[in-house]
């Protein structure tokens, strides 16, 4: 059978040790350890529902080898919402702006949006569209998702929130 490896990583601020198959994706490793806000829409890097922050960068966790994350830090939408005021605000903005329908794309979308804002992304709708172009949403038509990220970007620009 497949080789197992032990990896130590920080998931949502907590030190954890996972024992995983050497070839397992980070998405499967997280979901098998009950971190199921990381959704699986395709498992081959096409849809973005599995987006997480790996050392501060938005990545598709289904394309990331879990074993390669040994010693690294992972934040998911759920964890960010508890610990990071910017993401918590972005989550609220998604509700306010009506950016959520079925909600299956939402966690990945919010992580992509939060990464953009954390890296100094501006209130620029074209740039926001670009940053979420790898995250598919079949329900909303994206308009209100762009709106929510734009709203929070504006709040940051106006000094009402820190990135």
């Amino acid at each position, binding site marked *: 059978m497949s080789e197992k490896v032990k990896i130590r990583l920080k998931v949502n601020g907590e030190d954890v040790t996972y024992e995983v198959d050497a070839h397992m994706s980070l998405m499967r490793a997280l979901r098998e350890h009950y971190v199921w806000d990381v959704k699986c829409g395709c498992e081959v890097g096409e849809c973005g529902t599995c987006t997480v922050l790996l050392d501060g960068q938005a990545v598709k966790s289904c394309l990331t080898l879990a074993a390669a994350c040994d010693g690294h830090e992972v934040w998911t939408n759920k964890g960010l919402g508890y610990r990071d005021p910017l993401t918590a605000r972005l989550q609220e903005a998604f509700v306010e702006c009506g950016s959520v329908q079925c909600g299956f794309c939402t966690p990945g979308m919010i992580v992509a949006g939060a990464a953009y804002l954390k890296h100094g992304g501006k209130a620029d709708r074209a740039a926001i569209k670009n940053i979420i172009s790898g995250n*598919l949403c079949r*329900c909303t038509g994206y308009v209100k998702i762009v709106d929510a990220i734009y709203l929070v970007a504006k709040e940051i620009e106006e000094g009402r929130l820190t990135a």
Partner: protein
Amino acid sequence: MTQVSEGSYIGQNVPRSDGHAKVTGAMVYPSDVIVPGMMYGALLRSPYPHAEILSVDTTEAEKMGAVCLTYKDIEPIKYNERSVSIPAATYRDRTVLPDKARHFGEPLMAVAADTQELAYRAVRAIKVEYKVLPAVFEPEEAMKDGAPQLYDKIYLGDEEVAVHNNIGVIRNISEGDCEAGFAKADRIFQESFELGRIYHNQMETKCAVVKPEPDGSITVWATAQSIHANRQLLGRVLGMPLSRINVIKLPFGGAFGSSIQVNTVTPICAYLALKAGRPVKLVSAREEDFYSHQKYPAKFTVKMGVTNDGLITAAHVTALVDFGAHQVQPLPFLGCTAGWFASLYKYEGNIRFDGTAVYTNKTPCCAMQGYGNPQINFAIESMIDIISNEMGFSPVDLRLKNYRGVGDEFWGQGPTIRSIIKSCGVEQSLVEGRQMTDFDHRERPDTKTGDVRRGLGLARGFHCSGTGGPKEGEVIDYSSALVKINEDGSVDLLTPVTDHGGGTWDALRKICAEVLQVPLDLVGLSPAGTMQIGYDVCTHATRGVYCGGAAVYHVAMKVKEKLLEVAGRLMAEHAYNLEVVRSDGLHQGVVQVKDFPAKSMTIGDIAKQAQNMSWGTIAYTDSYRQRNCPPCFTTHFVEVEVDMRTGVITVPKVLIFGDCGNPMNPDLVKGQLVGSFNRGFGYTVFEQLPTNEATGELANKGLLVDYKTPSAMEMPPIKDVEVILCDTYEPTGPFGAKGIGEAALASVQAAISNAVYNAIGIRFHKLPLTPEAVLAAIREREAQSAGATPS
């Protein structure tokens, strides 16, 4: 049903109550369900489009610790995955697992193992010997004598019927006198249209988790638009009493019709769990999901007669549909398609529809937002544009002159479900839209030059709100609800109705809160399973609010009656002298004496005192059936830009009118209209599912990257997406509401195509309008005009 009270939640934009759970990632979807001791399932899917299974050897897979399931393990009960129609109008041709593969990717065997990976490995260890049969992929080919036959016999209701030349269903409908109508016309138009298959691409793939319980029952979590349909099908194929099957209602990651029928994976998962004696989870990979169901393709020929003053005197449509390897109800599909056609315009009552639906060795087709409506709408609304251009009518006036509106008959679900239109936003949409877009002054295509050409187009459409008619027809339609007042004045609402993201559950809570006049946050939506609540046919046919909401309204009214009776006893008043009003100050519903509010009690006090007196809980449950299927109307005014060098179509601007009666939550309604525009844009310009006829496989191999759906980049800028909700009130709807869901897509395709015509003067009869197709058409025209004008 009654008007709303002052300060009502109905019509107010209230943030969706499941929003918090969804944005924080706390919400549990079927694919997230984890049960202790759970095994993981995987499917062996057919590598051939048509093949007999000669032998199966599962020894190696079993040695790996997998539980294996083949057709030998299942009862060969024939069923149709969709159970919305009555049994006598339902064709049955499939079993849980087949002994013959009829399309590439069809599930043939299943395994369950301790890990997902082991399950996949075990599938690969199963040895199958096939006899590969010739396959057929196009309906015209399939109907020829000597073509490969998918079936000899199938069942209609309890009757065995023979299948000839792969023809699954023929449905011909005729009313009035088409010949006389055409004779009266000054001009006759005839055109053909074609729409291919597309894929739902709901973001959560189809999945199920089935748990055998200690008492011999099973609990089921699945991507399902109807919990009761799942229960009843499982009862039938497992031979289990329904009382032992609890299908739990959950939100799931998008529907668009993909789970109206019971998903193919669900009964397989149930069989696996029962064979293993352990819970099993079976989730389709995206590449598999592409092969589970697709949207019906259609080829139409449309003939219309028109007088010189713009009266359409007759219309005749022929339809040819390839529905794939199993019937997920092409019979009602053809009936509905006929109905959408018949209900768009009056045609002086002279209509004919000849529909044929054919088996091919392709993935089975099922409903996808519109059930034939976007397909036939593209044909008819393109036709109206053609007639307007040819005869010099304004496209707005031609529509205004001929549309079916208030007082006219509407076929909500084919010829057997009809009701009279009582509310209609068509005129408002056309007249206001004409002004806002300055439609009458659009430039003609032959005046346009340059590399990027702009055009403006229009189309209108609708969908039914539910499938109820004054008389029962082929389609089952009723819903249930349970409402119970708690001892603190809060309310439990139990409904079998599913919500796919449109906000149906909030609408139902609002209806309950409005009837009982309690603060909205005090109305709780209870978890519901088939063991706890009565039947609802399905959240389909745009019926969630109109039909599900009407059941909540009906039951809440009964609870209100009981409440006032109990309050009367406590307050020494006659019930008819009492009324309920909401007190935001007390954060309670209050029962008071009419015209004497000083004498009042909160609903909480009433319920508590009724409990202290041992009078019982104030609660009620019942079912309710709507007797109308009012159309919800939409109109799309679309501006496009066509790049003459690349053939790329973009949409700089869109104006959408939606008529959903009194909107429960206007922002959520607008959200559905915008989302649908996005899907319609994909349908019109990108999406297609060609088959590799050498292998029977999809050309994209089930990969999303090779199946282009719109990303955020393709949507018009937010300031240029305008949505207007019509000012209408549906007298038969709960607080004036009707639906919107499927109507939101109906006219997108034709509006874009009509705008493209206005931009470049080329009429497209076939979707999608990919850059390649547009460019080829531009080149062809250039070649023709070069040939016509000698240089």
